[in-house]
């Protein structure tokens, strides 16, 4: 990097543009390309190898982790990139599940699964946006409060309406019908392994959509809004529109997650979406990290995988709840970026310290010029 800078300083003004473009390209290309290549390889391994290596039980757990990582991703983008706090994502997950089930039972196999997923996402997006709309013009605190209230309201309504399970009427629920509220899956995803693979692919697509947003025009506008709405407006950003868009995107992704959840083993029950879970979701997202794209995966692991380990070891889940509460307090008072940024940073520091030590051992007496740099 230093060599590149030296070259820039020497060149004339008119050539600056060309040089900078070239320098940026040559510096970024190898590092980024390698990173993407590694990611793709890891993804292929996860998709193909995992269902073969693990038991059905763990495949189902990992499927759940993947689905919930879409939800944690949506919240992380909202909080980390736009600075908006939504306490209603779990409720929206339930709404997405409800919509998917209702449409699934209404249209049956006539509605292809991919289309069902998209329509569910769209409808959930509209509902989520409507909930957030009144508060988007006011301060962030009101948005958090209204989404919390919506979460509680939806939980209550859900207890009354239940999930569609093939029954009659608008609500589509029949208490006589002993069948579960489960979405029928097309043949390619009928098995646990097949479903797992489809879910991981959809999750990857969701992450891709998020990354494209964050690195594009929307991400830039959001960064401005997060730092100073006044500066954003002065730059020509329609703040209300971009906030709405962020909220719509988060609701869309959560709706899709809800559809996938409805199709997962066991289907949906009204006990699956308590108000408390919306707060727990906030906690794990804060702990996992809101600024990185690894954070949501860490968050989903905290939410869905760790409790399974605890269950296997006979420890009470309440301990985790308390730890999550402490995590929120810690995040608010110290590291807003979350564990996913802190830990790699700490590891990098550790790595640097170790390689520094190693270098000192391997090189006998460094020349004075080398040290001066």
């Amino acid at each position, binding site marked *: 990097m230093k060599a590149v800078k030296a070259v*820039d300083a020497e060149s004339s003004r008119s050539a600056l543009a060309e040089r900078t473009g070239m320098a940026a390209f040559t510096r970024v290309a190898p590092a980024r390309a390698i990173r993407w290549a590694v990611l793709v390889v890891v993804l292929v391994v996860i998709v193909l190898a995992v269902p073969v290596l693990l038991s059905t039980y763990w495949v189902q757990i990992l499927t759940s982790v993947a689905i919930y990582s879409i939800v944690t991703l949506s919240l992380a983008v909202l909080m980390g990139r736009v600075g908006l706090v939504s306490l209603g994502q779990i409720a929206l997950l339930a709404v997405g599940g409800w919509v998917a089930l209702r449409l699934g039972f209404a249209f049956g196999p006539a509605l292809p699964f991919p289309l069902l997923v998209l329509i569910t996402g769209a409808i959930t997006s509209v509902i989520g946006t409507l909930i957030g709309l009144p508060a988007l013009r006011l301060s962030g605190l009101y948005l958090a409060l209204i989404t919390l209230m919506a979460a509680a309201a939806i939980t209550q309504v859900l207890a009354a309406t239940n999930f569609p399970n093939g029954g009659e009427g608008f609500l589509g629920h029949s208490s006589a019908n002993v069948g579960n509220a489960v979405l029928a899956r097309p043949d390619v995803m009928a098995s646990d392994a097949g479903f797992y693979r489809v879910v991981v692919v959809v999750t990857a697509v969701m992450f891709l959509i998020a990354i494209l947003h964050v690195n594009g025009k929307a991400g830039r506008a959001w*960064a401005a809004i997060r*730092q100073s709405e*006044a500066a954003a407006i002065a730059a020509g*950003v329609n703040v209300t529109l971009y906030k709405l868009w962020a909220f719509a995107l988060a609701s869309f992704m959560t709706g899709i997650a809800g559809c996938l959840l409805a199709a997962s083993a066991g289907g949906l029950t009204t006990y699956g979406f308590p108000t408390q879970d919306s707060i727990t979701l906030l906690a794990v997202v804060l702990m996992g990290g809101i600024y990185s794209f690894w954070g949501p995966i860490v968050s989903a692991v905290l939410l869905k995988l760790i409790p399974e380990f605890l269950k296997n070891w006979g420890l009470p889940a309440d301990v985790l709840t308390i730890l999550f509460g402490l995590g929120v307090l810690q995040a608010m008072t110290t590291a807003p970026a979350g564990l996913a940024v802190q830990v790699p940073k700490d590891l990098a520091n550790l790595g640097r310290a170790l390689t520094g030590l190693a270098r000192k051992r391997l090189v006998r007496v460094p020349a004075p010029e080398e040290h001066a740099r």
Partner: protein
Amino acid sequence: MIEITGLTVHFGGVTPLDNVSMVFPAGTCGLIGPNGAGKTTFFNVLSGFVSPAAGSVRAFGTDLLSMANYRRARWGLRRTFQTEQAIEALSVFDNVAMVHEHCAARQSARRQEVLEAIAFVGLDGDPDERVGTLDARDRRLVEIARAVVGEPKVVLLDEPAAGLPEAETKHLSDMIQRIPEQRGALVILVDHDMSLVSACCQVTAVLDFGKLIASGPTADVLRNEHVMRAYLGTDDKV
């Protein structure tokens, strides 16, 4: 030309702007006054953060106040803030590009025009560096680059020299004087540094307690008795 007519702002018991009428003709114009005179409020009215109780603002024949606030940047109104607001999370390039992509200017020329603006303010570091890592002087320059990119019509500079050492003020002064001619915009400069104002501005208006107390060629205004009294205060004032 910018024409302000009868501009009045009420703010919970205070009147930061009281029936202010002034004209900013062309080039670089100064707006000075003691603290609390209403200068930043005036900028906030232009930016659309504050709604006036009365009055109108016509810039180059367009009624600014009827435009939604985020549309004004698109029209060509740009602004810097007292506490500089370059976006820390973004790179220098993205900071300036963001303004460009939200304004009507041709998107195909974006890269070129952004680099042009960055060169204009004299930033010669790496444009892909995050603004958060830059020092105060460079951040201020990024903010100004955001203000002059593309085809601005009006550039509002709110105390751009605040907190900068002497040497930087000279660079700033040269740059501000070049804006009307090289970027084609009318500049309104608010600052407390009188040497900066007299170097850059041909005409200056003076506010005190929300009222216009003087306006005209800068040299005359700075010698004006009322203006001096406003800044220094006299024995008669309570």
